[in-house]
């Protein structure tokens, strides 16, 4: 459909992006206090701009995923104020068009998965607006990172449905290949503000298919059989019940709705919540259907590997490896799958 364009360096691409800063908010992955994450390009220090190269083209995603661009960790959706008896609803800031420069295949895929939740009826209009206004430029991985399991979950490290694919040639030149209408428009815009040349696409790195992809229905069936397995109690013994896995997982999407008000003003907002917290299923009256850590752990993995398959036909994991890297006690979806598998073989 569309051919690629290239520019001589990442700096040149970033400079072109700078010229679009009036129209878009542009985010790129970089380092802040030794932690990787996406930051606005126009707020980066010189060092952070230099660091974009290494992190955008690393063979693993940054610590924070792209989910917060579509589903922010806190989002006000009603703002009101009162004068006497009159209550007025105030206007909210409109989401500006944004560009994510340097997402990875796993994260791109994760957005497709949560699209099934937020863009199915009733449509989540806040999510939808952000989705429509965001353009994703993804990079490819050339090898698997230490904790990566993307291929097992059907994600190709070297290909994704991002709006634009970005690759780096051996001389440091940057290739952009648009894959959607939005992507094509952005590339054309970039070409008008930067020095780009039309060219042939870079070859996509080939992964030899040595990794066996999991079959969603098989995993779902395995999970069904292990609902009463002692493996959940076992895992719960070392789980500390924090919310790290849920907040850093690119497909976890549970949220809480809260009000915050002071006298004559207030907001209603939604904010990430974690099923690992005891209070997650607390009900009025004091009942909690998931009172033990084992209950909550089991629920999380069932959501990812069973319920989501039943409802949406897919496994809700993209193998990004964040749970493996960040869990303080080393529980990850891969280790759970291993335990479920071996547990069944024993019985």
């Amino acid at each position, binding site marked *: 459909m569309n051919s690629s364009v290239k520019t001589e360096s990442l700096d040149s691409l970033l400079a072109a992006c700078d010229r679009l800063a009036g129209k878009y908010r542009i985010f790129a992955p970089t380092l*802040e206090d030794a932690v990787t994450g996406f930051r606005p390009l126009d707020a980066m220090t010189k060092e952070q701009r230099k660091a974009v190269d290494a992190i955008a083209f690393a063979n693993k995603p940054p610590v924070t995923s792209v989910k917060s661009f579509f589903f922010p960790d806190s989002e006000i959706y009603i703002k009101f104020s009162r004068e006497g008896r009159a209550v007025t609803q105030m206007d909210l800031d409109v989401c500006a068009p944004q560009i994510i420069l340097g997402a990875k295949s796993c994260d791109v895929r994760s957005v497709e998965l949560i699209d099934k939740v937020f863009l199915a009826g009733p449509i989540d209009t806040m999510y939808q607006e952000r989705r429509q206004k965001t353009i994703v430029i993804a990079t490819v991985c050339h090898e698997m990172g230490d904790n990566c399991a993307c291929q097992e979950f059907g994600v190709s490290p070297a290909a994704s449905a991002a709006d634009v694919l970005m690759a780096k040639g051996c001389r440091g030149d940057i290739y952009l290949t648009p894959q959607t209408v939005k992507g094509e428009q952005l590339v054309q815009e970039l070409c008008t503000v930067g020095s780009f040349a039309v060219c042939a696409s870079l070859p996509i790195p080939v992964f030899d298919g040595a990794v066996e992809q999991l079959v969603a229905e098989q995993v779902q069936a395995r999970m069904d059989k292990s609902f009463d397995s002692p493996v959940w109690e076992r895992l719960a013994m*070392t789980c*500390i019940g*924090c919310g790290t896995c849920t907040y850093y997982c690119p497909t976890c999407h549970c949220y809480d709705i809260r009000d915050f008000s002071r006298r004559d003003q207030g907001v209603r907002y939604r*904010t990430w919540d974690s099923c690992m917290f005891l209070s997650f299923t607390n009900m009025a009256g004091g009942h909690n259907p998931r009172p*033990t850590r084992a209950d909550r752990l089991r629920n999380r993995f069932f959501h990812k590997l069973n319920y989501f398959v039943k409802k949406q036909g897919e496994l809700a994991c993209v193998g990004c490896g964040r749970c493996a890297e960040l869990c*303080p*006690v080393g529980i*990850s979806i891969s280790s759970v799958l291993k335990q479920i598998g071996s547990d069944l073989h024993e019985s």
Partner: protein
Amino acid sequence: MRKISEALREVAGRLLRSGEVDLVLGYAWSEQGQGTVPYVAFTAEEAANLCFDTTSRMALSKYLLQDTFLGKRVALVVKGCDYRALKLSLSENRIERKHTYLIGIDCPMMDGSPFCLICQHKCPPAEDVDILLTEADEAGELKASSHQEAFPEIPSIERMSGDERFEYWKRQLNRCKRCYSCRHACPVCTCRQCLFDRDNQDAVDPAKDVLAQHQFYHIIRAFHVADRCVGCGQCAQVCPEGIPLHLLHQKLQLELHKHYGSYRAGLDELPSPLSHAHAHEPDFFGKVGKQ
């Protein structure tokens, strides 16, 4: 750490075979291959997975407060800092000593931990544990550094101007996602109902994009564990965003020592400095004096 690991496996196997304990809580090599993680062995076969090395950082004593461990006889692997935290729980009657078999470890320094540089209590007292394992042929004492050498960030932050300090902590705290890993990993953060879990919406607000709420959480948590901190370093270790919140706790420790004398949680007799107050203590707000 070969000697300690071997001795540990031997002790654990023996305890499980004889039925003296229901389970052994220690460390094993992580499946992700990133060091050791907490591990529970129920059988002598599983005991063979136990090991202990310089990545065995996680504090284990807190697990004994969990419902999954209550009522069980547990053999617990305790290194110095963990032992101190356990002592606190014992003195608060949260755990019964008779239900525990303590496998004390003469702790080597954990990889990359500034806390270990200033640790004065790497080995639990032999008389307080049921067995003490040491790597006998490893030479000598840990070289103890000064607090400043271990935490140079504290004097460095103190040298900043007020605005610079604010910007520094604003940048750090804005990354906080309130995952509460710090709270869950801390072995002395043991309240049955934490302030931040209360449903009262006036008490706490879970918004993650409001700096004032992050300040509130971190300052109050630092206050609540101020005189209980045992210097295990887990709070900063587990933080996914690399926020150096251990500096807040260490700063408070320094202030406590400065004004009220040295107090080592879990080692010194209760009451702790913040649970009592006396007439003879310094008055900072007196009629004539300045703050």
